[in-house]
């Protein structure tokens, strides 16, 4: 199936110039590429939360679960546990995954469950028309904080590293080729992977120029080294002036939660009635 065939009849309603187009196009290319590598498209399930990002599942002709705000992660986890043969890719916004549903990301990382979370981090609520999010810089003037926010942003990659994620990367909606590379590496990673994408919202927080001046590609970085990864992740805290690294910060092979579930299955007698009778006999 070609990238073109991956389209649907749904009308695209993102604003012209929206950073989501780059993500959509990269994901389509990667979905084609993983098919060429042997993963049938029907084995892929896309999950989204709610927000501008989430429309992506309407725009891709593939299995999908369009869930609710903040909850893409546990849905993706459930699908993976139910169907270990599936490649489960979750999409979420920064308000969505880093705000409303942050606990799920922490636990998914802790479990090292084999799903990929792609976070469309535009650092503003778009669909609700311009409020600050967990990654907006301190002082951000949004519609709920007209005098500027009073709190510093979180560094989501630092939080994820501390929580146990085994693949962490950052992309930028101005770097299509790099996005494709990162997505593919994240999807192919066996374990919990998260890609934080600086996805620009042209309407409510246009940061193209700001990012263009500061981003650089991670080179000669050893992603297997936790300390080096932590240092690189801390280089920019989503608030202060600093160079912004793009690429894979951390990658580690580790046993997965879903993998342990499968191995726990034994050769058992699956005559349900006989097994119920046995439970009853033991209860007398």
């Amino acid at each position, binding site marked *: 199936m070609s990238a073109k065939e991956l389209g649907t009849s749904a009308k695209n309603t993102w604003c012209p110039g929206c950073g989501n187009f780059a993500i959509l196009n990269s994901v389509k290319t990667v979905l084609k590429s993983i098919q060429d590598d042997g993963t049938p498209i029907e084995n892929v399930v896309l999950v989204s939360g709610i927000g501008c990002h989430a429309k992506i599942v309407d725009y891709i002709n593939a299995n999908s679960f369009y869930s609710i705000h903040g909850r893409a992660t546990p849905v993706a986890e459930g699908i993976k546990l*139910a169907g270990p043969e599936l490649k489960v890719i979750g999409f979420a916004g920064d308000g969505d995954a880093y705000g409303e549903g942050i606990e*799920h990301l922490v636990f998914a990382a802790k479990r090292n469950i084999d799903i990929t979370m792609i976070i469309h981090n535009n650092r503003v609520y778009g669909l609700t028309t311009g409020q600050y999010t967990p990654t907006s810089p301190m002082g951000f003037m949004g519609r709920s904080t007209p005098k500027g926010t009073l709190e510093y942003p979180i560094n989501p990659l630092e939080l994820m590293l501390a929580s146990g994620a085994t693949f962490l990367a950052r992309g930028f909606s101005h770097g299509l080729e790099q996005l494709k590379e990162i997505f593919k590496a994240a999807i192919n990673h066996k374990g919990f992977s998260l890609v934080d994408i600086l996805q620009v919202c042209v309407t409510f927080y246009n940061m193209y120029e700001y990012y263009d001046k500061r981003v650089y590609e991670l080179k000669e970085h050893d992603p297997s080294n936790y300390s080096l990864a932590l240092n690189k992740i801390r280089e920019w805290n989503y608030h202060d002036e600093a160079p912004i690294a793009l690429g894979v910060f951390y990658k580690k092979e580790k046993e997965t939660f879903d993998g342990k579930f499968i191995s726990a299955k034994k050769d058992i007698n699956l005559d349900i009635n006989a097994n119920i009778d046995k*439970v009853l006999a*033991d209860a007398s």
Partner: protein
Amino acid sequence: MREISVLIGGKAGDGINQAGILLARLFSNMGYFVYMYFDYPSLIRGGHNFALIRASEKKISAHRLRIDYIIAINQDTVDFHKSKLRDQNNIIYDSDAINSSGQGLPLSKIIKEEGAKPIMRNSILMGAFARAIGIDYELLEGVIKKNISKELNLNLKLSARGYKSAKELLGLTALKKKSLPVLTGNEVFGLGLISAGLEAYVAYPMTPSSNILHFLASAADNFNLKVVHPESEIGVILMALGFSYKGRRVAVGTSGGGFCLMTEALSMAGMAELPLVIIVAQRAGPSTGIPTYTAQCDLHFVLSAGHGEFPRFVVAPGDSEEAYYWSNAALNISWKYQIPSIILSDKVLSEGAFSFDRESSGNSSREEAVLWKNEGAYKRYLNTDSGISPLAFAPNRGAFIKVNSYEHDEYGITTEDPKEIMPMYEKRLRKEKYLAQELIKYDAVKVYGNKKAEIALLCWGSNKGACIEVAESLGLKVIQPVVFSPFPRESFSDALKGVKKIIDVENNATAQLAGLIAKFGIFPDEKILKYDGRPFTIEELEEKVKAVIS
């Protein structure tokens, strides 16, 4: 009627619940029907725990105020309960720790002599009790062997010592009837779900539902279940809906507070048409309330939980056979109609132990959902006459399965087009009409007692046990609606035929069932309401009923 009521009490950590189950199984082995009520405060060590075990020739699911025996591990047990005892001599107690009438045994001394642990005091008391009611030691020995795995020989030795040192007080004759297994309601819920093909159970611990999680986690290997305990009830229900999307039969369990957290996703299950069973075991609220005590205060909550309008199946079983039958039915109905099902339990049913007769609980097997036949283009939300769209699950080479929490077209793509919205809305609601029709063949409303009586006790859930016994004693009728959504209006009207006076009996303060039937123009004449966290005893209810019918 031959029956016996025994109270065993001690501190939390004394193993009262386990000792109670062992006693219940002892009576069951004598051919009796048993019921056990377990009363404990919300703490881990200390406090006062007691189990009330009642055995009867007839099927029962309620306890009496009056008791025949007390088995006491601490002074509180004697002090708090001896006034309910028929004969002050029928107390078997630890004479090293308690001042009491009756038969004292120096438990600490015996434990020390045998090099045993304090928790094994129960074994000595079991032995003494078996002697007191005049049963053969071999019977007790058999029950102990089956129920105690740790240090069995030492426990047997202790029970034999207890048996030898006690004397017979009030004998109980063994019946020539088959012995039924004794299980908690929560275990039976688990088995009922399994009988309908349960493949996964996801839950966060919350009293009084946690034992479903414990039971299914321990039984997971034997039934090929995936049992998951995630970070929160929100995580629970969303993860479960992931299982559901993949075609795995899944259930979750919680109590009121946890269910509050689940309601946003419950609404998604309604919109996305994802099958899911939710067990809500009620406890006394609001908020943290009285966490280890019972109530029936969430009927209206589960009926209206979740934003928006969508069909749901709500059922409130009243005893273990109903728990088995309806948890099976709920899982099958969820998959057949692609709707959420809610099983409403309460502390008494969930944590109480009952003789369980699987044979009499009704036919319980797995019924298949409507599946896609791999023909043509797949539409997850195909708008059919019944409203039921054939299911397909990933990976399926010929189908992309798109589910959506937004209003959507037949393919599952988001829509805001008024021409598409109404047909899809109606498709979902139509399923309820067909479900209501199917429910006619189920016993959605039960009737007991004197079916010709003009006075009826109206009850739901675990109150049926006390109501049936009181009604039988006073010659009244009992009407127990079991299904609450879609409400079986016709069966309910049929049950009310000939009834001139309705007495509503509920474990809540606002008479929620009465509120529900008021919608149909039916108003109970009297209300007997109890909301102190404790279930009705038979004597208490009988007295209150007598007061309103005289």
